Structures are given as structure tokens and as C-alpha cells.
């Protein structure tokens, strides 16, 4: 065993590992796009709790990381609560336009939404309310899996250059 793993080679590996670990932790701390490292408060643990809960009375607020996880599993549908024009100017990838303030024609589409996927409402971010209103309406109509991504377009843009611009209806 010792022949294959001489102490000096292991020392080199350990030194590299320590240097990378320290640099990584410091760099992550300084990077605005760093990942949150507090145990327990992790997005993925939060996701598990979210998927177990049922019969929600309020839309669940979700973070950017939770949103990305849901999208990665294709378990979610993004709903853009802003006006049709704002949607056309740029929206989250794969989002469907469902303007909260539109008339009855738009409202009828709500009944067509899937009930087995998470419906994630968003608007501009920074305290916009359309997504909250849309989320409440969905919960009111008996949808159980409703979430609101409060970061909205604004936070998404800070982390992803990609905001889809073509219409997608």
C-alpha cells in the first residue's frame, strides 16, 4: 500500500487540497454569486419540506436557488404575472404569460394550468405585487402547488444574462 501511496505524494495532495479549500471558501464568501453555506438553511432541504407540504393556504415564497432546482427537474411551470408587453420585452426562460390585470379571457386559462406541477409566479421583483396576487388567486381556485418567486426578473437578471425575449405563448 505504502509503495503506491508514498508519504511525499500524499503530502502534495493534502497541501493542494488545503490550499484549494481555503481559497474556495474565501472566494465564495467574497463572490456576490457565491453559494450560501449555513447548514440547515439550505435550499435543497427547504425544497424537500416544500414537496411534502400539501394543502397550502398561501403561495410559498421561493428563492432563486429553489427556483433553479425546480426548473432543473421540470417539475414547475413559470407564470409571468406582468403585462403582455413586458413579457414580450423579456421573460424567464420557458415562462408562460399570464397577466394578472387582464380580462376574463385570460382568467379562463387558469383552469387549464397543470395541477401536478409547481406553479411559480413572478413579476419584476423588488416588491412588485402582481405575482403575489396571481399566486393568491391560484390558491383560491384550489391549486395546491403555488409558489411566488419574489426576486423576479430583477434578481434573475443579476444571476443569469439569459432572459428570453421571443414571445412564448
Amino acid at each position, binding site marked *: 500500500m505504502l509503495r503506491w501511496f508514498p508519504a511525499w505524494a500524499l503530502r*502534495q*495532495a493534502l497541501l*493542494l487540497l488545503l490550499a484549494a479549500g481555503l481559497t474556495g471558501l474565501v472566494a465564495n464568501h467574497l463572490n456576490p454569486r457565491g453559494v450560501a453555506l449555513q447548514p440547515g438553511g439550505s435550499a435543497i432541504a427547504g425544497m424537500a419540506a416544500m414537496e411534502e407540504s400539501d394543502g397550502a393556504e398561501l403561495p410559498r415564497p421561493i428563492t432563486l436557488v429553489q427556483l433553479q432546482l425546480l426548473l432543473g427537474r421540470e417539475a414547475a411551470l413559470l407564470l409571468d404575472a406582468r403585462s403582455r408587453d413586458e413579457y414580450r420585452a423579456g421573460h424567464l426562460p420557458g415562462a408562460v404569460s399570464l397577466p394578472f390585470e387582464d380580462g376574463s379571457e385570460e382568467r379562463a386559462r387558469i383552469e387549464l394550468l397543470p395541477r401536478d406541477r409547481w406553479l411559480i409566479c413572478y413579476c419584476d421583483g423588488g416588491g412588485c405585487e402582481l405575482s403575489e396576487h396571481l399566486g393568491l388567486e391560484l390558491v383560491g381556485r384550489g391549486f395546491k402547488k403555488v409558489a411566488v418567486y419574489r426576486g423576479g426578473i430583477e434578481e434573475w437578471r443579476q444571476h443569469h444574462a439569459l432572459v428570453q425575449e421571443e414571445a412564448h405563448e
Partner: protein
Amino acid sequence: MSNPAGARLATLLRLGLAALFIYASLDKIAHPAAFAVAIGHYQMLPGFLAALLAAILPWLELGCGLALLLNRGVAGATLLVAGMNLLFILAITAALARGLDISCGCFSTSGAGSRVGVTRLLEDLGLLIAAVWLYLRAIAAPRPDFA
């Protein structure tokens, strides 16, 4: 090990691995949060460990890449590269076995990056073999040049 063709091949592989690992680290170093999400897609680690791995692994890739490039501490670097590739192979195999259709997170953290698949598995296997061969050469001709 005095075979000149072998030595040339070793240099070529060393520099190739160096370039690949340095390149692979850059996007992940810039976007730890996005890389944590990519790790999360494999559904193998609890959130905190996925986050920790996302913060550290890219720097380890960079460190090993630089060591290989500069020809310093090659034994340690190739040992770690082999270990990382072994982990990648396990993760991809587990993902494929469970039928997960996820982006690899190998070179890019964007969800649009390449998907996990058998091609990636074979690539990683090739890299693993190269790293092990370089490691065996390095310990056969001990030049403990750092640490």
C-alpha cells in the same frame, strides 16, 4: 521510464489535463451558486455538502491544473485528478442508473450545458486512466519538489 516516446506522451497528457482542468474550473469559480444547483440535480448530497463542494471543487480543479501546467507536485495533483474523476464517474453512473436527465455541470454551470450521458462517462474514464498513468510515473521517479 527513460523511454523518450513515453516521456513525450507524458508531457502531452500532463499539459492536456492541465488545460482541461483549468478550463473546467473557470465558469464554476465565477458562479458557485449555479454550480451548487448543478450538483443538486444529481440528488446525491445533502444541501450543505453540495454547497461546500460547489465552493471548493472548482478551486481544486484549478489548483491541480496549475500544478500540472507548472510541473510542480505532479504526483499530488494527478492523485487528486484521479480521485475527482473517480467521483465524477460515480456521480454520472448513479445519475444514469436512476434515469436523471440533467445537465452535466462539467464545464459550464448553465442549464444549457451538455447533458450527462455515456459519452461523458467514457471521457472521464479516459481522463482517469491518463491521471493514474501519470501518477504511477511520478511516484516511480520521485522528485518531491514541493511539500
